[in-house]
């Protein structure tokens, strides 16, 4: 876990809607090291999926538009690449798994054909080689009778199985980065556990770096090395997983963790709750986007947006207030 694989700086993405321009991502920056798993956590509409899709230029343009930023991957800026160049990266060096396994496979194409596509495209396999490799991959992700099942269509697979296929397909060209966009949200708890265990196992075997997008703080705790918390199109806190859960510093993170029921707790303790609701991003926030809901809020929070700053080696937070002491940061 040494060298830096991906470095994203100042990413901004907007969407044009009938109601106005939605500023979905407003300056996101992070780095990803080799073999590392970064968890990206946030509620719906916080910009977590959009920022990761933007990196591969997969957001529909229009209505979406990447306004600013760079994403350095192996010395090249992904956002500056033309269509042909970015296509070489997609599915080859960086691949993705999506949220809903029921809709992310083509219903009128066999699993075998869909799996063969990236192999023939990026690895230069012929049909027979692609088929053999597909069987191996399906076996790797734990699909029984893999050779027979290549002829099947997606609707003949269960939800959990389809997500395994998606993972097998994403890993087929030995990518350096796997971006998983809420891959377990649509699945049941026991199936979710299967998928998480599978990804942990594959990570150890194949050594790729992972960006795992989710709204579930529990899933992230079990899989991530480092966690970035997003709110209102910004990363508002970033820390190693242990540090974050033991020592949350941003008022939003504190609230989010506090609002979860403690499964080990005795007796019934009232849940901590964050009042109000997430902002509608029709303007780019000029103040701290969390300030209307924050209990530590100061005058400064309402006028200036804090930047993500390090408070120790593995912890960054974007807040004007030191939530430990309750006083404003210098």
């Amino acid at each position, binding site marked *: 876990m040494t060298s830096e694989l991906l470095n994203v700086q100042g990413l901004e993405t907007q969407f044009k809607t009938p109601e106005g321009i939605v500023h979905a991502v407003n300056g996101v920056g992070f780095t990803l090291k080799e073999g590392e798993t970064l968890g990206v956590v946030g*509620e*719906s509409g916080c910009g977590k999926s959009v920022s990761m899709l933007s990196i591969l230029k997969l957001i529909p343009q229009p209505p979406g538009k990447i306004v600013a930023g760079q994403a350095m991957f192996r010395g090249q800026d992904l956002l500056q690449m033309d269509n042909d160049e970015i296509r070489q990266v997609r599915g080859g060096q960086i691949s993705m798994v999506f949220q809903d396994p029921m809709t992310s496979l083509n219903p009128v194409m066999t699993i075998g054909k869909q799996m063969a596509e990236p192999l023939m495209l990026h690895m230069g396999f012929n049909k027979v080689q692609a088929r053999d490799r597909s069987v191996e991959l399906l076996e790797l992700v734990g699909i029984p009778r893999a050779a027979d099942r290549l002829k099947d269509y997606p609707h003949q697979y*269960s*939800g*959990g*199985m389809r997500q395994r296929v998606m993972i097998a397909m994403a890993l087929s060209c030995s990518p350096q980065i796997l971006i998983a966009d809420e891959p377990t949200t649509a699945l*049941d*708890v*026991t*199936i*979710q*556990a*299967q998928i*998480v*265990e599978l990804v942990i196992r594959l990570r150890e075997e194949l050594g790729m770096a992972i960006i795992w997008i989710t*709204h*579930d*703080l*529990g*899933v992230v*705790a*079990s899989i991530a090395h480092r966690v970035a918390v997003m709110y209102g199109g910004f990363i508002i806190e970033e820390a190693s*997983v*242990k540090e974050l*859960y033991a020592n949350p510093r941003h008022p*939003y993170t504190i*609230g*989010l*963790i*506090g*609002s*979860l*029921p403690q*499964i080990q707790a*005795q007796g*019934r303790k*009232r*849940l*901590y*709750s*964050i*009042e109000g*609701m*997430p902002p509608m991003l029709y303007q780019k926030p000029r103040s701290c986007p969390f300030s209307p809901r924050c209990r530590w809020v100061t005058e400064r929070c309402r006028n200036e947006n804090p930047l993500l700053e390090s408070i120790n080696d593995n912890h960054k937070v974007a807040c004007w207030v030191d939530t430990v002491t309750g006083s404003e940061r210098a």
Partner: protein
Amino acid sequence: MTENEVLIQVDDLKMHFPIYRGVIRRQVGAVRAVDGVSFKIHRGETLGLVGESGCGKSTTGRTMLQLYQPTAGKVFYEDIELTALKNEPMRHMRKNVQMIFQDPYASLNPRMTIRDIVAEPLVAFGTASGKAIDERVRELMGLVKLDPDFMLRYPHEFSGGQRQRIGIARALANNPSFIVCDEPISALDVSIQAQVINLFEDLQKELDLTYLFIAHDLSMVRHISDRVAVMYLGIIVELADRNEIYKNPIHPYTKALLSAIPVADPDFYETHDRIVLEGDVPSPANPPSGCRFRTRCPIAESYCAESRPEFKEVSPGHFVECFKWDHPDNKRR
């Protein structure tokens, strides 16, 4: 209010939805969504009902309120048998038994104002009329912590969490004593879930409510419930006090389910191994013979396929449906 007074009793409730197949749409079978569940709910308590999608938990709630015509079984409210009531008497019972729905976007009529939505149960029974309706609506909106001045607005002007509050206000209109909460928080964002859960708890204390709380999130259910029932493929496999079921789960499915819940604590995963169940849930149209769980059970034996185990009280208040509940195999894990 006595602690042990039974408010709701469900006896061997079954709900089978017919499947029509073939050339002439003959009935070829049934989805056994609920296939014989029994439990009691005491006045003032919250019974949590958990399970994965398709296990029949929502169907159980809806069938209890006679929103579906049950295939078999009985449901009692106090000593009234709901399953025996005709349409009109059952409609009148709806003053006492109410429901809150999962999807706050789908459960409010988009063409009615909040006032009309909340007042609808009042109008249906003539509980209030004229000015009294407005007063009662204001009171209810205050109760769920919404600004009563918003009552002439339409549902789409509110957020998910607020809409869920409107749904709660509607359910409370006629002072019911029993409410089925059908996954009321699973469509909400994490930070909003806690707001709604706290509201449920406050209302229960204030209004002496009894809840059946249906959810797939075992940690939230444990937080709000007094007792928890775990469903799998149309049956209740285990039912116990909430601390008991967490500390001392007996059924292999409960164990796996508990172990599969993601815990927001990275240290937890250094000390705990997950029990990962193999395979998928079988189709409720064609459930396995004998024990429903045997196809995925790590300790299943051949005899598990032969007959269905008894739903047995293994210690006071702790019910389990498993042949091997005190078998050494089960204890080891």
